């Protein structure tokens, strides 16, 4: 695993560090979905669209294919089947984390996150997934 892929959970706390290391990261389109869906001002949204375009041009934006969605659905199903998550948990509860995890697996990345608990769960059904807490990565 060679490249850090930032999870959405790191953006609020680690802005300065992301800014300083702007050229080090890969991003999943799912993270941009989560960021852009949270924005209120149109001007902010436009800045994220602009950033997205540059990342895409530089090959730093990771997209997902049909097979990735299917693999993620099967992975979350396995968690449910193995009773590692509640059987009544929403089918979308781990969806985005699973998709971000899948992006990292298919591009030699590791996930940098503040949400280690959910990714640790996903590691049980995605054994090659590598995850590091943001506090450790930016230390």
């Amino acid at each position, binding site marked *: 695993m060679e490249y850090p892929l930032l999870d959405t959970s790191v953006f609020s706390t680690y802005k300065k560090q992301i800014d300083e290391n702007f050229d080090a990261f890969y991003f999943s389109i799912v993270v941009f979905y989560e960021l852009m869906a*949270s924005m209120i001002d149109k001007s902010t949204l436009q800045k*994220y669209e*602009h950033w997205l375009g*540059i990342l895409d041009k*530089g090959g730093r934006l990771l997209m997902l294919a049909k097979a990735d969605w299917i693999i993620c659905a099967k992975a979350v199903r396995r968690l449910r089947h193995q009773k590692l998550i509640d059987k009544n948990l929403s089918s979308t509860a781990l969806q985005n984390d699973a998709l971000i995890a899948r992006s990292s697996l298919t591009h030699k990345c590791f996930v940098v996150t503040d949400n280690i608990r959910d990714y640790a769960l996903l590691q049980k059904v995605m054994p090659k997934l590598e995850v590091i807490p943001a506090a450790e990565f930016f230390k």
Partner: protein
Amino acid sequence: MPNKKEKAQDSNGLRDYSHLPRAKDFKKPEKLTELQKELKKATREALEALEEEEKKYGISIT
């Protein structure tokens, strides 16, 4: 040879991340290409905008 479970934890039973690089391991480019300049500017502007929204609206990105 340690098995996978042992390899994932250090001697204190905590998860071991020592095999993964840290932010400081990524060298900053000495001379930026045009695309890197654009990326640097766009990254900063986006992060500043996020900070403003957090202050203005109390939004939380998690």
